[in-house]
């Protein structure tokens, strides 16, 4: 037995779990659009409050919702630093060599960090409350208009669904390879950027090779179970939109409108 990796579906009976996958995907897109359109801190405050409420409704707990976000702290710091040091503005805090540190840059960076972090929390909530094939089916429905111009919607949705499901597996595999390389003297913990960059190469190559091997085996297993590229739909269940789906969509639309106004 092992622990569920980040981004895996978690069994539950919350309102979010019971919502239709297609509606949930639409709500996520609306919510995300609201977060992206917002450019004021009250707007971000509202978004954070709503995310907290959704997390509580999902019964997943903040730990699950924030999983993965914590690991990105270095990336967030880098975004914040780059924006603070390079943002083009008249009001500068301090200038040194090519760096122009400014308050505007800091707030711009903070906005980017908040947007990325909230998008990650949203993604976590969506994937933790929707099973992979339901999500793939929802993506297929969402992309359906593209079918009219010849886009292989079913394949695209299936690839996305399977890829999402394999993210935790790949991160586990990368970790195992990293440990194996460390045992053979690789220095991932080195503080020198050049050494860090060099050590990533022997990690990336085996991870990619493993991904190709897995993809090959999975494709064969899917074919052996009758998967045909040209036939059928991923999810054949008819969508029954309930009142809770309608309320979810309405609330997310209201949220989007509020974000534009703020």
């Amino acid at each position, binding site marked *: 037995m*092992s622990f569920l990796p980040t981004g895996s579906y978690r*069994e539950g009976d919350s309102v979010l779990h019971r919502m239709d996958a297609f509606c949930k995907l639409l709500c996520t897109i609306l919510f995300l659009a609201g977060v992206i359109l917002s450019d004021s801190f009250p707007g971000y405050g509202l978004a954070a409050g709503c995310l907290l409420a959704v997390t509580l409704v999902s019964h997943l707990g903040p730990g699950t919702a924030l999983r993965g976000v914590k690991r990105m702290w270095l990336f967030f710091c880098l975004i914040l630093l780059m924006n603070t040091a390079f943002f083009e503005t008249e009001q500068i805090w301090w200038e040194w060599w090519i760096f122009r540190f400014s308050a505007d840059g800091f707030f711009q960076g903070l906005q980017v960090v908040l947007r990325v972090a909230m998008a990650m929390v949203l993604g976590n909530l969506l994937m933790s409350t929707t099973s992979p094939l339901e999500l793939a089916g929802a993506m297929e429905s969402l992309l359906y208009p593209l079918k009219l111009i010849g886009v292989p919607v079913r394949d695209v949705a299936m690839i996305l669904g399977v890829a999402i499901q394999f993210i935790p597996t790949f991160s586990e595999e990368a970790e195992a390879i990293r440990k194996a390389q460390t045992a053979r003297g690789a220095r991932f913990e080195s503080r020198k950027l050049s050494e860090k960059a060099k050590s990533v190469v022997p990690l990336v190559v085996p991870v990619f090779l493993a991904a190709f091997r897995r993809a090959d*085996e*999975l494709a064969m*297993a*899917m074919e052996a179970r009758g998967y045909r590229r040209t036939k*059928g739909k991923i999810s054949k269940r008819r969508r029954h939109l309930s009142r809770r789906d309608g309320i979810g969509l309405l609330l997310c639309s209201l949220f989007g409108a509020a974000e534009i106004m703020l």
Partner: protein
Amino acid sequence: MQAVNGKRIFFTYEDDGVSSPVLEDVSLEIQAGEFIAVLGANGSGKSTLVRLLNGLLPLEKGELKVWNLDPRQESRLWELRRLCGMVFQNPDNQFVSSIVEEDVAFGLRNYDTPEEEIPERVGRALSLVGMRGYERYSTHMLSGGQKQRVAMAGVLAMEPEILIFDEATSMLDPQGRREVLACLRQIHGMGKTIVMITHYVEEALDADRIFLMQGGKLRKSGSPREILTDRGLLAEANLIPPLAVRIYFDLKDSGILLDRCPLTKEELVEELCRLK
């Protein structure tokens, strides 16, 4: 009824203009309800042979009928794949969904099974492999043996006539292997035809017949006793005989002769007791 009938099968892999023959002049017959173990060292052509059976690889030369269907007939390929299910080596690389019941239902949905029938068939398949009650479990939470049994359920749900196990136990711990082999025996008991590829000679003891592959050829087919007690034949095929057989020959080399060559631990004990 014949489950498989193949005559003079050849197969060659082409890679950058270099062709490497993998199967050469293989002829085989498998009766419905038989349990066949395919033994052979790496690169002997075992996996290629079984992948030809359910049309995962195209048949190039020779004749092949699987449950009276020709794998070369494109229009009936999907029927063939339903009739001839296949369980692969690594269970993690077979899951399309991380939820047990969704994954087991994947094949059924591909074959347009009515939605209202699916839960019952998924439940039945999971019961057969002893995984009832795990429907909503995440596959990440299962042990290796349980994962492979879920993969078996995914194939069993399609109600195949022939089940192919392509080294399905090779990545499992001893407990996982025991679980999978127990399921396999149970499925064979239901009258299904089983074709099992394995490196472990002990796993072939329960088979009705063994196909010994060597260098792309079907070197010999026969009962487990015929094949597994032939020390020279196994050595040529780069295989190690079962423990009981090895002890028999070690005793023989030391001048102690048993009445007959035992295949299992139990038979060995019986023979040794008779020595007194």
